[in-house]
């Protein structure tokens, strides 16, 4: 091997935890905090954009599927088929149309979250007891008011758990975007797979992000469904 004389940062000279390639290295966090922050922000943006995209498509799709029963099989079948395609292949198939970068990753991840969200919405709406619907109808609720005041609140727990699954999965799958140089924290992991401090930092931050977003959604669910805390005895029957 030819010795490399490229001018490195001064931290790579001398004996320190970076040159020794240690797992935990304070100097790494000192010198690369900006890089870490950029990657983290990119990761969060990608996840939020893709889940939002998934929601925007999933909600009308699920409502249509519920209204027209013949559509339900097609919608569920198509989204399941998308889910079966490995992420690396899905991203890559989009590249000729959407190019490298943010768009491809967000569309790819959005398609995956679509599968989970459509199912969650349909399951949630299906779990609304028939007699509750009947009573609402008897009280003169029209279809729109029924949806907003009766069905949406009752479907919320199933929907929120679907949203949690979709979000946490998106955090993990964003790393695959590093093949397109747009993988957030995944880029740090792939950039140099022998750099222990960086691989560990990227991995730990990624899992921490997933946990943090999950906690946020759990809190949100509690706030949205205050009645659930009071009525823990009425456990939903899981089919």
């Amino acid at each position, binding site marked *: 091997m030819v010795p490399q004389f490229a001018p490195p940062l001064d931290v790579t000279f001398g004996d320190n935890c970076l040159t020794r390639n240690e797992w935990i290295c304070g100097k790494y966090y000192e010198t690369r905090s900006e890089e870490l922050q950029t990657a983290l922000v990119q990761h969060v943006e990608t996840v939020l954009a893709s889940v939002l995209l998934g929601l925007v498509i999933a909600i009308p799709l699920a409502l249509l599927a519920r209204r027209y029963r013949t559509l339900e099989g097609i919608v569920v079948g198509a989204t399941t*088929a998308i889910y*079966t*395609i*490995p*992420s*690396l*292949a*899905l991203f*890559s*198939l989009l*590249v*000729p149309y959407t190019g490298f970068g943010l768009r491809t990753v967000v569309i790819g991840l959005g398609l995956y979250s679509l599968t989970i969200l459509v199912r969650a919405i349909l399951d949630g709406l299906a779990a609304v007891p028939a007699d509750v619907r009947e009573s609402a109808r008897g009280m003169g609720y029209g279809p729109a008011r029924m949806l907003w005041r009766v069905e949406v609140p009752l479907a919320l727990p199933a929907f929120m758990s679907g949203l949690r*699954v979709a979000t*946490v*999965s998106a*955090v*993990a*799958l*964003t*790393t*695959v975007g*590093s*093949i397109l140089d747009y993988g957030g924290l*995944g880029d740090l*992991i*792939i950039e140099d*797979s*022998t750099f*222990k401090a960086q*691989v*560990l930092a*990227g*991995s730990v931050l*990624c*899992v921490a992000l*997933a*946990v943090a977003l*999950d906690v946020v959604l759990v809190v949100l669910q509690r706030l949205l469904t205050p009645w659930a805390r009071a009525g823990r005895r009425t456990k939903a029957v899981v*089919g």
Partner: protein
Amino acid sequence: MNGVLDWFGDSANWHGPDGVPVLLGQHLLLTFASVLIALVVGLPLALWLGHRHRGGLLVINLTNIGRAVPIIALLSLFSLTVLGTGTLGPFGRAGLATLVTLALFALPPIVTGAYTAVVGVDGDVVEAARGMGMGEVAVLRRVELPLAAPLIISGIRLAVVQVWATATIAALVSGPGLGNIITYGYANNQTAIVVSGSLIVAVSALVLEVTFLVLAKVVDPGRRSGA
């Protein structure tokens, strides 16, 4: 997209050590070896926990953790440890790390499937079996296991399909298999190769899924699995 057709038409891509059949074979071997490891480790544990109606929290957490940890992260971490040193037969560079990582990703669906299947067996049936003087092992083997079989199998199916997809991503770090066509295409700026490789990966995943669904119907025509 002529490049894609050319790639598929080029016989050089279908022969030799980097040909599609060899990579497909590697991918199959890798997938089934890791699922097998996960089965040996996870199935007995899940069955016993289900039988005792214990450890539900553990099972749920296993699934949540499996979802939150990116394959790239785990594989990169393992590759930097003892597991990543040297090659392992057909599993290539850092073969042991790849195998262990994929086995870990196969665990949650297998364990969850088997656990919920056994827990869900009608309590009256189990009670009746005990009343007839069956021991715990006999109850598990002769009553719970046959009743839980369809759900256990659907958990294994899920594991195979997931590991098949995850093994593709493993090519980003190390490891053999079909993902290498895609990473090779990116490394050489050949979009046609990237798309060709992706088509092969996507179609093979769909074929695998459909094969399992058909198999499940043939084996157990009376029941339609919901999962």
